[in-house]
Each structure stands twice: as structure tokens, then as C-alpha cells.
């Protein structure tokens, strides 16, 4: 494998997907913590189940946040180390949002994290809620700057091309308010809330099933399931729907490949399952819903939907099979998660959730689903953008560092594989231990150690 580009892409994909396992929970849990703490304040009953539940999730948040921080550093570095030509070409534009993330979000988060985890005893409950809100703002801001950076690569706006081929910012506000960024941010953030809701519900379900910490389990289940239903619904509609329409309008080859659609036509059907056969340019063993793709993409069952045949093969996404599966896994799991949360909400509303043992088992075991769906969603976004690094402007094959060869790139990829295996095992071990120990009785002391 002398092809350095392959290893650059694999390394970025691997480190990005691994990293995002953690921030998606940070983004979701930040809201859960604020909600539970606000409920606690409103009830105003001393050290009740709400206070202890918030304290438990803050401990999980602390561990999760650290792994997110340390795995985030390599992503920023790789713009320079592995994608030097991209940075040379587009750094003058995307450097804005990458720098803003550091200056406006990371400093805010790093200052308030210690106060959230260790400061409860030192401040009033209201002030501690304020700290939780500051962390929510910091993490959600950080998310926007990253999505805005990605949105420029997906749908470049607010720039001009210089005579030497580099891209320069021409309108800061157009760039920052990229319509693609607004839609993608809403969709991504809601997907992160889905993860937060499923994790909180799963732990609540586990405690309930094992008869431990009934009061805290109840709070976690209620908050998790309610947030879960709202988030799973909204991640599909309106945000997922709006995202699909943007893809249809601006990245027609991506939409065609996501659906395994090799031929154009009206009344385009939505494929539930099937295997894209790129060599023969067809979908094997398909199960279709006629007309639904036309409706989803353009709002009418009869609408004309472009197929890959309309475009030269040099503009097709480079990994149609994986793109197709990533999209279908995301949508399939998303649908399943709506049904699960709807069922759980009905049972909770009837006051029967704690006794529905089968449903609790499913809620507990469903915890990988949002992680898989989030990862598949990012893979859909990034694979769908191919063969472009900056859509329609700059091709991926021109973006990698010219002096870094495949031996270098594979060396560092293997290093990350080993390091992240250890990190992942440590994380699972420590979080598992927290869940087994249950909510702490006392607030942690200020300081470290």
C-alpha cells in the first residue's frame, strides 16, 4: 500500500470517530445536568434525589470530558501534519473558526469544569447551577465552531479564490452564518442529545432492574426518556429532513450514493435494504418504498431524483458502499430509537415504566445505538463530500501533506490504534465502576486528587 492518501484518510477518520464518542455525551449530558439541577432548585428540598443524581452525572461528565479533551488535540494537529496542502489552501478561511473554538469555547470550558466537578460545596446551589450553564454554553459553542468549519468544507461560502489557488475569506458573517452550518449544527446537537438521553436512561434502567438507588434511577429514567423522545423526533424532523434537502440541492452525487441510486428518474423509491454493486451499477436484493425518496428530497412523490449516471465517475463519492451503509445504519437506528423512546414515554406517562422489565432491558442494552448512529452520521457527511475536500473547489487527493509518506502515516495510525485501545478500556472500566458504585452521598471536595 504505497498510497499515503488512504492512510491519511483512515487516520483522520479513525481519530475523529473515536474522539466524537466522547463530546457527543458531553454535549448531551451538559443539558441533562442543567435540567436535573434546575429541577432540584425548583423543588428546593435540600439534598434530595435530584441533587444526588446531578452529582452522579457530573462525575461521569468529568471523566468523559477529559477523554474528549485529550483525543481532541490530535484532530486540530492533523490539519497541519497530515493535511498540509488543505491548510495552505484553505487555512486562511477555516482558521477563523478553529481559532475561535480555542479562544471562546475551550478556555471557558476548562475554567468551569473544575468548578463544576469540585466546587459544589464552596458555592450556593444557584451559583453551581450557573457553572453548569457556563459549561453547557462552552461545549455547545465549541460544537458550533467545529460544525461551521466542517460546513465550509461541505458547502463553501463567504470566500474568494486567489490567483494562486488559495482561498481567502471575503465575508466573515456569511462564512459564520453558512446556512449549511445552521442546519448541520441543529442536527448534530440533537443527535448528541439523543446520546445523552440514551446513556442516562440506560443507567436508570440498570439501577431499576438491579433494585439499586430507586430514587435516583427514577429521576434518570424520567429525564432521559422525556429528553430522548423530544431529541429522537427532532433529529429526524425537522433537522434530518432539512439536512437531506440541503444534500439533495448541493451534493446530488452524495444523495444518489447514499441511496445506492445509479439511475435517474421520477417517483424515486426509498431503499430499506440492499447491497450496492458498484461494478454492475445496481443495487442487489433491494426492498423499496416507491416514491418516498422523491418525497423526502423534494416534497413530492413524483419528483425527479438524480442518479449517479448523470455525473461523470470522477465526481462520484470514492466509497459508495460504505457511504450507503453509513446512511442506512443512521436512518435505521434513528427510526428504531424513536419507537423505543415513544414506547418508554407512554409507559412512563402511565406510571408503569419502572415495572416494564422487558422495556427496561431494551433501554439498557440500546446504549450503543446512539453512538453507532452518530458515527454513521459523520461518516455519511464526510464520505458524501468525497471526492472533494472543499466541495466543488478542492479535491481530497490534493489536500494531503506532500512530504509525509505512507510509512509515516501508518506508523502514527498504528500508534493511535494502540493508545486509543488502552484509553477506551480505561474509560469503560472507570465509567462502569461509577455506575456500579451509584450516586455519591456527598459532594466532592474542591481541589484535585
Amino acid at each position, binding site marked *: 500500500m504505497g498510497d499515503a492518501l488512504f492512510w491519511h484518510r483512515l487516520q483522520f477518520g479513525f481519530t475523529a470517530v473515536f474522539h466524537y464518542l466522547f463530546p457527543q455525551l458531553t454535549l448531551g449530558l451538559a443539558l441533562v445536568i442543567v435540567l436535573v439541577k434546575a429541577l432540584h432548585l425548583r423543588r428546593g428540598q435540600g439534598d434530595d434525589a435530584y441533587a444526588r443524581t446531578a452529582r452522579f452525572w457530573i*462525575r461521569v461528565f*468529568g*471523566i468523559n470530558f*477529559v*477523554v474528549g*479533551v*485529550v*483525543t481532541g*488535540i*490530535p484532530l*486540530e*494537529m492533523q490539519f*497541519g*501534519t497530515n493535511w*498540509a496542502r*488543505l*491548510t*495552505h489552501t*484553505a*487555512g*486562511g*478561511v*477555516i*482558521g*477563523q473558526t*478553529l*481559532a*475561535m*473554538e*480555542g*479562544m*471562546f469555547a*475551550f*478556555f*471557558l470550558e*476548562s*475554567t468551569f*469544569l*473544575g468548578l463544576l*466537578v*469540585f466546587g459544589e460545596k464552596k458555592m450556593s446551589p444557584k451559583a453551581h447551577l450557573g457553572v453548569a450553564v457556563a459549561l453547557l454554553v462552552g461545549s455547545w459553542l465549541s460544537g458550533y465552531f467545529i460544525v461551521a468549519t466542517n460546513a465550509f468544507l461541505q458547502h463553501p461560502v463567504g470566500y474568494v479564490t486567489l490567483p494562486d489557488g488559495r482561498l*481567502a*475569506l*471575503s465575508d466573515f458573517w456569511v462564512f459564520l452564518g453558512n446556512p449549511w452550518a445552521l442546519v448541520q449544527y441543529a442536527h448534530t446537537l440533537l443527535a448528541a442529545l439523543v446520546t445523552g438521553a440514551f446513556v442516562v436512561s440506560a443507567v436508570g434502567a440498570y439501577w431499576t432492574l438491579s433494585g439499586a438507588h430507586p430514587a435516583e434511577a427514577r429521576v434518570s429514567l424520567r429525564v432521559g426518556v422525556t429528553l430522548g423522545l423530544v431529541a429522537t423526533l427532532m433529529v429526524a424532523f425537522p433537522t434530518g429532513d432539512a439536512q437531506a434537502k440541503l444534500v439533495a440541492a448541493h451534493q446530488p452525487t452524495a444523495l444518489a450514493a447514499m441511496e445506492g441510486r445509479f439511475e435517474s428518474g421520477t417517483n424515486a423509491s426509498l431503499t430499506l435494504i440492499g447491497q450496492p454493486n458498484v461494478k454492475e451499477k445496481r443495487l442487489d436484493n433491494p426492498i423499496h418504498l416507491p416514491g418516498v425518496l422523491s418525497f423526502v428530497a423534494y416534497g413530492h412523490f413524483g419528483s425527479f431524483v438524480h442518479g449517479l449516471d448523470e455525473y461523470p465517475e470522477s465526481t462520484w463519492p470514492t466509497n459508495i458502499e460504505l457511504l450507503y451503509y453509513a446512511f442506512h445504519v443512521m436512518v435505521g437506528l434513528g427510526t428504531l430509537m424513536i419507537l423505543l423512546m415513544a414506547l418508554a414515554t407512554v409507559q412512563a406517562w402511565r406510571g408503569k415504566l419502572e415495572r416494564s422489565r422487558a422495556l427496561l432491558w431494551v433501554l439498557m442494552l440500546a446504549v450503543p445505538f446512539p453512538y453507532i448512529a452518530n458515527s454513521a452520521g459523520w461518516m455519511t457527511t464526510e464520505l458524501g463530500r468525497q471526492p472533494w475536500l472543499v466541495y466543488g473547489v478542492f479535491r481530497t487527493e490534493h489536500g494531503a*501533506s*506532500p*512530504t*509525509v509518506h505512507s510509512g*509515516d502515516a501508518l506508523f*502514527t495510525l498504528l*500508534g493511535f490504534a494502540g*493508545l486509543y485501545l488502552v*484509553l477506551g478500556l*480505561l474509560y469503560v472500566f*472507570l465509567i462502569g*465502576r461509577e455506575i456500579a458504585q451509584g450516586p455519591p452521598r456527598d459532594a466532592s*471536595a474542591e*481541589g*484535585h*486528587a
Partner: protein
Amino acid sequence: MIPLWYSLASLALAAYVVLDGFDLGAGALHLWIARTDGERRAVLGAIGPWWDGNEVWLIAAAGTLMLAFPTALAVAFSGFYLAMFLVVWALILRGTAIELRSHLASPLWRAFWDFVFSAASGVLALLFGVALGNLLRGVPLGGERWFTLALFTSFAPHQGDPVGLLDVYTVTVGVVAVAALLHHGALFLAWKTSGTVNARARLAAGRTLPVLAALLVLAYVATARVARLTPSPLGAGLVVVSTCALGASALFRRRSRELAAFLASCLFLATALAGVAATLYPTLLRSSDGAHDLTAHAAAAEAYSLGTAAPWYFVSLVLVAGYFANLFRMHRGKVTTSDTSDP
């Protein structure tokens, strides 16, 4: 705009070295300064509120470079490819060690993470010094924009040999950085701790200072002779200030004015780095042949980008100064036992 952004990028890097420098130094030293679990918890309690925010300055510096001088970031990061990942991996191990060591009471678990924390901190200090050495000596930039640098070629290269990341000169600068940060970290711990840790930290500061002073003289001579770099007037002035600050730090330490000694050490590091920046300006990346330097003007983003970013960058600097002032206010005293209890 270009001098402004050159200064801002230098400022972010210097802030990183001064701030993360003290927790790198404290981390590398703590195996010796703090022997019992209680003592080590005191060290971690002292740097706990700071280290994460300090490290953000590294991300901020990279972000600032990307914003203002994207080509320099691209050329340097890809040229130093393997070294960059050594830094990243050490940062990952270090952050993990700091945060995870206290989650289990097992002495084996804690001993392991304490070792990782110390080793990763020392390696980072050395690598950052080596990086500075490479910037001063220059890298093999040719007519092409890009370069690549072997980790080592000949350790004592002759004139005209291809240069490597590690040679006598760059390793010397690396060792200077280790000494400077050990000294810096010891002064920080002396300020923040009491009892035996405080006594050992003061002793460590006293012992590292003469080594640091001797190494600094060696590094200045080597920079003039090997790297053929003589300071600009402003750069020379800053180097003089930094030398005075180091002397002042020693005086304050002898008089047991711990905070003043630490702040003087901060000034020493900041002015030494400012002296380097002032001397190199407008060069961002020196070429080892002296003919193909990458300048700030050649590497800069367009004027519109730089002009648009300046206002929001200043707003963010004010906010960040506020966060750090607040941290300082909340943690200005010595670490107490209640700060170091298990979470």
C-alpha cells in the same frame, strides 16, 4: 496587521510555555519532591485547577497560527510530522494520568500513573526545547515550499550535512528547556505547598538554578556560533531583561518571597521567548541554508481575514484574562488538606 499577528501568535506560544511550563516542570519533578500519596495529592491539588486551561494555550497558539499564518502551520507541522505525534501522544498520556490516578485507591494504580505523569511531562519539556532549537537553527527549506526532517542524521553535523531534528545543538536547547521548566515548576510548588513538599521544592529550585544558568550561557554561545543567529537590538534588550528576571527570582527565593520568585520566573521565560521572537521577526521558519526563510509576509492569510479577526481576538483575550484572574483569585493561597481529598 502582520506585526500584530506575529506578536499575537508569539504571545499565545509564550503564554503556553509560561503557564503549562509550571505544571510540566512540577509534573516531571513530583516523583522526587512528593514521596507519599498525601504529598503527591498536594502536588496534583496545586496544579489541578490550572493544567487544563494552561494546555488550551497550545491549542490556541495552533489556532492563531492557522488563522494568521496558515502556510507556516502547514509547512512546519508536516515537516515535523513524527515529532508532532510524539508531542500529541505525550500530551494524551499526561492528561490521562493526571485525571485518572485518583479514581482508584490502589497504590499500584497510583504509582503507575505518577510515573506516566512524570515521564510524559519531562519528555514534553525536552521536545518543546528541541522544537525551539530547530526553529533557531533552521530547517531544510529549499526552493520548494515543503520540507521533511529526519529525526536524526548526524548528531554533530558538519557544514552542509543534511540537518535532523536531534543534533548537538537542538538537544542542548532541549536540555535548557528541561532545566528552565524544572526550576519554574519547583518555584510554583514552593509557592503553592507547605511542609516537606515546600522544603523539597525550594531545594530543587536552588539546585536547578546554577545548572540552568550554566546551560543558558552555553545555549547563547551555541546559538551565536552554531545557529549563526545574533539578537536584534530589541531581542538583546529582552534577553537582558530575562537574565535580570532570573536573578531577581533567585533573590526573592532566598528571602522566602515565594510568589514573587515564581512570577519573576514567569517573566524570565516570557521575555526570553519574546527575545527570540523579536530576533527572528519577520521570519517564521528559518532555513538551514539561510537563503529560503519562510517569512510572516509569505505565510500570512489575506489582509481581510487578519483585519476581521483582530476585534474578536481581542474580545476573547479579555475574556481569557478574566478567567485566569478569577482562577488566581480563587486559588491564591497554599493548597490545604481539604483541597486534596479524594473525589
